[in-house]
């Protein structure tokens, strides 16, 4: 007798994920149930189609970009570790996090890492720069057919102009951080996980 889904998840794995992501034991088992229910092929990994089967995600204008964030470069499958690592970015930032072991490195849900996640939504070719073209493509995803090319182009130009400080007509990660320094990233890019 034991929970069917989490009997495939060993205690050692749960401990490792706990250390890496900061999720609690019960949160990990609940998220494993969710992972398992999304995994229609029952092969221990999720494909892009598994994500697209979620209707609320399929109608999200940035759905494809979000799904992409789960898959490392060039891969089509994400296992539970990878799934949890990506979700960990959205854990709220708690005060006791600051007292954690400094040698553990920056936690996945730090303000910086949350901003990096958002940056990568725009940076389509993962070259650490948001070019005008990339910005246009993402804008097109968000607005659909409702805005003309010219209008969209001028919106993109204006955005780059405001953010670009070194004149290379692209937005680097540090420029991205500077533009959004007053935005409450901790709250807006966090999800309230229960227990």
């Amino acid at each position, binding site marked *: 007798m034991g929970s069917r889904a989490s009997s495939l998840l060993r205690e050692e794995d749960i401990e490792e994920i706990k250390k890496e992501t900061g999720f609690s034991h019960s949160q990990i088992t609940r998220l494993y149930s969710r992972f398992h229910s999304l995994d229609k092929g029952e092969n221990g990994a999720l494909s892009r189609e598994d994500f697209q089967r979620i209707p609320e995600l399929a109608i999200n204008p940035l759905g494809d970009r979000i799904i992409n964030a789960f898959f490392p470069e060039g891969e089509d499958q994400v296992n539970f570790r990878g799934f949890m690592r990506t979700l960990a970015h959205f854990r709220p930032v708690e005060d006791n996090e600051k007292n954690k072991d400094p040698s553990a490195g920056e936690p996945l849900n730090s303000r910086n890492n949350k901003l990096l996640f958002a940056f990568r939504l725009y940076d389509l070719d993962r070259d650490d720069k948001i070019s005008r073209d990339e910005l246009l493509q993402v804008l097109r995803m968000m607005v659909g057919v409702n805005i003309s090319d010219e209008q969209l182009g001028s919106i993109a130009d204006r955005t780059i102009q405001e953010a670009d400080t070194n004149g290379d007509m692209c937005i680097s990660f540090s420029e991205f951080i500077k533009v959004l320094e007053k935005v409450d990233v901790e709250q807006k890019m966090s999800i309230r996980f229960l*227990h």
Partner: protein
Amino acid sequence: TTQLSQGYRSFKPTELHCLRVWLSVVLGLIVLPAMFGVSLGFTDLYVKALVKTLEWATLRIQRGQKEEDAVPAHLPNGIIEKDDGSMEEEIGELRRSHPKSLAGGDFTLCDAFYFCKKGIESIVEDQVTQRFTSEELASWNLLTRTNNNFHYISVRVTIIWGLGVFIRYCILLPLRVTLAVLGLSWLVIGTTLVGLLPHSNVKTWISDLIHVTCYRICARALSARIRYHNKENHPKKGGICVANHTSPIDIVILANDGCYAMVGQIHGGLMGVIQRSMVRSCPHVWFERSEMKDRHAVAKRLKDHVADKTKQPILIFPEGTCINNTSVMMFKKGSFDIGATIYPVAIKYDPQFGDAFWNSGKYNMVSYLLRMMTSWAIVCNVWYLPPMSLQDGEDAVHFANRVKSAIARQGGLVDLFWDGGLKREKVKESYKEEQQKMYSSMIVGQD
């Protein structure tokens, strides 16, 4: 000759005697009272005993849980807590913290945060995919099939569980299967015989009797305890009865309290035999597979049926597919376009005693029925709601949504606009286009 006699098993007199006793017990104590609608009180006693046992088991489990694994006694049905703000509110808040003043709408890089957060929230927990799997229980009900988050607790609980397995599989299951077989044979034979009679009031009366008694036997076969509320709103002839759909058993639940004309596709096999014999004694609306595609033909047949005031009310499940009884999904507008009076009915199963939901992707009909017959019991409430009709200036879609909300409210179910067809199909692009349109108006202001 010795080899032959070893090959064949001869029936000893004692075995035949046992069989006779068994059948007479079943007939006398269960089938006959059921047919006359009389309850000997066995099911009520059984359910009371069950409740006590399950309460005891829950206490043991709560005591046995460690501090680390502590799941709150009333498990909130969710992994995350969501914000309920609209797109405008949320993006507006995001932009307020931006240094540049943005009057009249504009684009900012932080707009993507809204879509990102919504997207990740839907990956962790969404409103739709959870409706196509069985509901998670807050406390274990001693059935392994519902054991998702509970671990081994103690020897005593295991023993009770083992006893439960024995009772369910070795005592209840054979009894229930016998009853089901009896009930269905009675239906087929009875309706075929009645079909030979000429059309008359007597024929209708006998046909109704046969249908009701068969369903009552089937209800006993599931150890069903059904409570009907507001019987004064019972569907009348010439109307259409609509209800939320959880499983094929819904038909048995509703037909225990009245006769309905069924609507559906004609199947082959055993199902087809039952359907064909049913229609001999009283008019049901069965369609060939090809006819189902033609919406006008379907509507016409339904209209003709309700126009004839001597025919029973039609029973329709407008969701079109089985949902897990935690929510009501989109009602297809077809039955609301006919112009007949709609009698809404809400059905809510108590998941504590057995999960009635048919996950047709995971289980076929036979394994589903087996699961039903090895559950503790099926306990449910049926509410008859006051009749509703199409109002002036209202279209069928709006009417369907109105009825859906009424049913959801009464049954304590979540009212969703999502289509039950999403179980198998992709979501329509138009929903995404709606989102894009809404967002565009935030960037460029009023067009």
